């Protein structure tokens, strides 16, 4: 595999210039994600408005893949309902872990497509956790409310 298959421009771009990289002042939920294997850390902030992700941001340090994944995630999840967010995570998780594909509704296909460059990690088992760390933190943030929770990628 060529290195540019894994490190596509969009990953290098988001890895080096992450979007929504800040604390969220009006966050209703947040969680810390930690990958003890490599020391990557990410904090995901979510502002929920009813059933909708009104805003989402992150802070942290880590490899290009974990930073790019977090950055893309925040762009994609803004404005989504919780069900839509869940569907996107499930489909993304299946793609990077080589699990059975779960489709997404037609209106989410463009978003799922944007995550496609990250799926190159599936041939690098040690790197899958880098790509899913922020998503796990997002999930933990919602699950544990305002109380911060540390999640470890399984």
């Amino acid at each position, binding site marked *: 595999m060529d290195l540019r298959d894994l*490190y596509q421009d969009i990953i290098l771009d988001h890895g080096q210039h992450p979007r929504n990289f800040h604390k969220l002042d009006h966050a209703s939920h947040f969680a810390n994600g930690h990958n003890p*294997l*490599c*020391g990557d850390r990410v904090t995901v902030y979510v502002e929920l408005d009813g059933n909708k992700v009104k805003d989402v941001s992150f802070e942290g340090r880590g*490899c*290009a893949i974990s930073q790019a994944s977090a950055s893309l995630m925040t762009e994609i999840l803004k404005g989504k309902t919780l069900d839509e967010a869940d569907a996107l995570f499930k489909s993304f998780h299946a793609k990077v872990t080589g699990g059975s594909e779960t489709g997404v509704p037609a209106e989410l296909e463009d978003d799922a497509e944007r995550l496609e460059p990250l799926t190159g990690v599936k041939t690098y088992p*040690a790197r899958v956790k880098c790509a899913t760390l922020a998503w796990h933190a997002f999930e933990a943030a919602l699950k544990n409310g305002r109380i911060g929770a540390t999640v470890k990628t399984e």
Partner: protein
Amino acid sequence: MSLDPQALRRDFPIFANNPGLVFLDSAASSQKPNAVIDGVANYYRTDYANVHRGVYRLSAKSTELYEAARARVRKFLNAKHDSEIVFVRGATEGINLVAYSWGGTFLKEGDEVLLTELEHHANIVPWQILRDRIGFRIVAAPIDTTGGLDLPALEKMITPRTKLVGVTQLANATGAMVPVETIARLAHAKGAKILVDGCQSAPRMPADVQALDCDFYVFSGHKIYGPTGIGALYAKKAILDAMPPFQGGGDMILNVTFEKTLYQEPPARFEAGTPDISGAIGLAMALDYVDAIGRDAILAHEEALTGYGVDKIASLPGIRLVGAGQHRLGILSVEAEGIHPHDLATLLDMNKVAVRAGHHCAQPLMDKLNLGATTRASFGVYNDERDIDAFAAALQAAQKAFKR
């Protein structure tokens, strides 16, 4: 006597089975020579039975080989008595054994265990677990600005409260050498014991526990061309004699009733259950292999490669070598500007360069150096300058890929 890495590579089938592999991760675990792979297989084929039990000939033969392996380790470390060698799963279990048995018996509230900032988690966590039970203090001697151990600071930290100094001889994360002989003298002058973690030094330089005058010394077989799951703890006889068992079970007892059990003398007292017989025998074969090459020759080889690597890295713009004080051996930890170590290791892997990326089980040291992680290349007898050139070229390729 010098060493020919190209010839030695032929002893390691991993290279024939992985053409183009540039293996620079021996500090994590070394590759295995045919002498060990075949030796262990042959032992299972021809001489295997449990030890210390059967009266039949095969069991006696197995026992003989197992105890000969112990004698081999004694000779390797230049210990005085075979009974000073306890087989363990590795250095980690060795330190846990010392903490649980010796520490659990002789450490009290108010005492201090002095470690260093260079330590591997294996020489930190067992002491913390014990501390939380007993209530002594753990103090850590700092590194200086060059990344080497601050020896004057360590000297000041040895006080009458210090009961044990636990120190690595060669820091696994950075390659910093530590003058353990001097530290042993300083510790003993204040009545403290010293434990030396020889994991990285045993494969790379001569080891002599009597010359070091250390009280405890641990190393792992898998880092010295031997099998996984085996290692050795050396402890001075008088100290081992006074230590209670670590684990209970078969093989470590003299007599058992439901009221009371009498324990064996060391080393059997510390080897409950069927030991890793083939591992011990394989370890002895690995030590034979190492001594056939010659430990002075290995040291000279590791020093030459280290010097070559340091110069090579220094010539690469944007690559920084993590400091290791005045004396570095066998391990080069680097940082590449703007590239996370995990990305770097994946990019290197695409060029078949196998290195370790991460915190190297030395998070306190990484925190002190203000690094989340590093990318580490480490050497073995099968490495030569071309491997370092390949490492350097792969680093440059990674930099190019990340430059946009």
